[in-house]
């Protein structure tokens, strides 16, 4: 399958003139710059004056600053030398067979079966000798598509996506052996590729994060997800505390401190599998008439307090508005973590919550305190206020009261509720035949817009498949060895055009019956539409208190 897709992916020279036709567009008031392309800062969705977020370039930002695991080693691109690979291959084969279940024997027994079938077969045959329930549970465990493990550097388990620490204890040893073996050679292990499996390592002292997966995702994307998990853990305990604990006691068992938070990390991993905003490192905006958004923002701006840094309104993981303290910028990753925290627990749904939270990209060394409350459940509207003072609950609570009062008094509340009823717009209103879905990220603002996934992407399975395709194309576009700016992917079920420029990223899904030229035409119409609607689709200003 992978090679099939590969055939269809090509650097498409025919697309190059597209950017010039686009920029010559007379409707396009905000981009007067001539060809060859829109420059960053005046693409559709770019902020008018100042960006709301810390400038973030998708995961280049993430992967670009990966800590060098060993300060003394220059780290030659992390490519594991072949000789060391051979040395460790024996160790690894044990790990691989344990995790993949597709034991060597079973493949030998059924050489004619394709690998997918082979796995299932192996699973049932290996459980038959024991025949007890326990091993079947373990077999199910091995079947998961993407395992994620977090270990301490001493090899103690910290988190496992699908639990089962018994199974983990033996594999943890192997994983740590791999990491430290290569480190002793002043190298860092990044990934192991075996059959359809990828084992990806991310080392963020004092933690080691490992993913064992058989998905289409690229290594880069998996390590990005592992980094998210790392940030998630930091957001619960702060980076400072994390380092302090392990410095004091390298054998510290972090699970104690994290107990009860597994659900938050689980939710994060589940969301990353289906929500493209993580993939693009951008924040989804809730579409809304600019006047209404401004009026809402004004209510947040008026309720200020000395200790408040950010006031945020969120609805169904979409950003409604964000007000920040002057000169303070939130990072999209921190906002994703906040959204994830709020949505992963029902404990915020009643009353007002006041919880310590670390925003690792903003400042990993300390806690902020977040005031979290729902202003409405149907439609969902959640208010988050981030404060620097842990004693200031009642100040924040008072701000909340003022915000609600103001929203009600100005009549904004009724229209806001109406606008929140549907977080998505319908792709058919754009009027481009064969257009089914798209993702558009404005790089300078870090904001993302995307229509509803309608039929045929209205089942979980199809939604997931489309996101996996986006992931695959994103991985191709950002492959560090050979990045691509335009990709036209032709599949049995849809055609997707991916276009990455300095200013934006665009992934457009068309019906499989369309042609390449109609797709190119469609994309340029789509960009014009996004430009025309940008003040509704995006948050163009970056308000402060």
């Amino acid at each position, binding site marked *: 399958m992978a090679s099939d897709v590969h055939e269809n992916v090509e650097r498409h020279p025919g697309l190059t003139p597209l950017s010039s036709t686009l920029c010559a567009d007379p409707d396009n008031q905000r981009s007067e710059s001539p060809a060859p392309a829109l420059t960053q800062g005046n693409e559709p969705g770019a902020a008018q004056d100042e960006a709301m977020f810390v400038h973030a370039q998708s995961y280049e930002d993430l992967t670009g600053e990966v800590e060098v695991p060993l300060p003394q080693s220059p780290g030659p691109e992390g490519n594991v030398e072949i000789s060391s690979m051979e040395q460790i291959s024996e160790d690894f084969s044990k790990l691989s067979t344990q995790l993949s279940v597709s034991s060597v024997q079973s493949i030998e027994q059924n050489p004619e079966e394709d690998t997918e079938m082979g796995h299932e077969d192996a699973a049932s045959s290996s459980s038959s000798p024991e025949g007890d329930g326990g091993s079947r549970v373990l077999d199910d465990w091995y079947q998961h598509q993407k395992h994620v493990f977090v270990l301490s550097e001493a090899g103690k388990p910290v988190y496992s996506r699908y639990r089962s620490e018994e199974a983990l204890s033996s594999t943890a040893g192997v994983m740590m052996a791999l990491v430290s073996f290569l480190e002793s050679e002043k190298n860092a292990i990044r990934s192991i590729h075996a059959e359809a499996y990828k084992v990806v390592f991310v080392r963020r002292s004092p933690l080691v994060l490992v993913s064992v997966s058989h998905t289409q995702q690229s290594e880069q994307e998996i390590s990005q997800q592992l980094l998210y998990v790392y940030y998630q853990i930091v957001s*619960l*305990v702060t980076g400072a505390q994390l380092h302090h604990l392990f410095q004091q006691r390298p054998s510290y068992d972090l699970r*104690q*401190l*994290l*107990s*009860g*938070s597994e*659900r*938050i990390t689980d939710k994060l991993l589940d969301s990353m599998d289906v929500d493209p905003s993580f993939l693009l490192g951008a924040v989804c905006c809730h579409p809304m008439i600019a006047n209404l958004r401004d009026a809402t923002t004004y209510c947040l701006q008026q309720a200020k307090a000395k200790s408040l840094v950010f006031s945020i309104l969120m609805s169904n993981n979409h950003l409604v508005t964000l007000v920040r303290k002057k000169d303070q910028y939130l990072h999209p990753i921190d906002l994703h973590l906040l959204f994830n*925290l709020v949505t992963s*627990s*029902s*404990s*915020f749904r*009643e*009353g*007002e*919550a*006041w*919880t*310590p*939270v670390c925003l690792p990209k903003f400042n990993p060394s300390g806690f902020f*305190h*977040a005031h979290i409350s729902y202003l409405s459940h149907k439609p969902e509207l959640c208010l988050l206020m981030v404060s620097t003072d*842990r*004693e200031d*609950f*009642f*100040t924040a*609570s*008072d701000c*909340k*009261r003022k915000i*609600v009062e103001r929203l009600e008094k100005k009549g904004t509340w009724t229209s806001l509720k109406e606008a929140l009823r549907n977080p998505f717009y319908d792709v058919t209103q754009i009027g481009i035949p064969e257009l089914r879905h798209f993702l558009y990220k404005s790089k300078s603002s870090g904001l993302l817009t995307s229509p509803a996934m309608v039929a045929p992407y209205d089942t979980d399975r199809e939604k997931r498949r489309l996101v996996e395709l986006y992931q695959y194309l994103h991985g191709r576009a950002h492959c560090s060895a050979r990045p691509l700016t335009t990709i036209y992917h032709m599949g049995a079920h849809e055609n997707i055009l991916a276009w990455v420029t300095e200013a934006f990223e665009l992934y457009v899904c068309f019906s499989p019956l369309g042609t390449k030229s109609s797709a190119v035409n469609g994309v340029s119409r789509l960009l014009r539409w996004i430009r025309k609607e940008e003040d509704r689709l995006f948050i163009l200003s970056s308000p402060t208190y």
Partner: protein
Amino acid sequence: MSGQRVDCKVVMLGKESVGKTSLVERYVHHRFLQGPYQNTIGAAFVAKSMNVGGRIVTLGIWDTAGSERYEAMSRIYYRGAKAAIVCYDLTDLSSFERVKFWVNELQNFEEHCRIYICGTKIDLIENDKSRRQVDFHDVQDYADEIKAHLCETSSKTGHSVDELFQKVAEDFVNYSDFQVQTEPKGVDLTQKRDLSSYSCCHH
């Protein structure tokens, strides 16, 4: 939720999963939510007014997370509390050991906080007596020793829940009436000690 004034700050303490949130849920919303256990993150605040002998008393209830991760922060939640409801699970002996930890903490840092020890999930024991791990009389002796009030509740059935909070409010009124002889009613004398229990901005 209008500018609420909290008369009496109440803090819920206890080991995780003993049912502090369920207790508050039962008292405030008169319901018991079935379903998978959801741990509290940080702490949740909710205010509820009640009538004690013709006087309206607003309880400001802090439902704290039982997780160890938040232990270092717990002081901000119980500081200035007039009452602490320290919960344990009647079917889990280790949860009673945590009660002693919290009682110690309160005695050291909040000596004016009245302590209510609350056994939870009594419905489980009514169905199966053998599940009780914490003896009533042992806890009663302990409660007498630290001058705490003791009750056994069920958030599922509502058993003794309203009575517990009623008792907290009554004690608060009786105690503050005794203190507030000359002041007009409703003014919180402890303002100096307890800035955080006021919602109005005065600084």
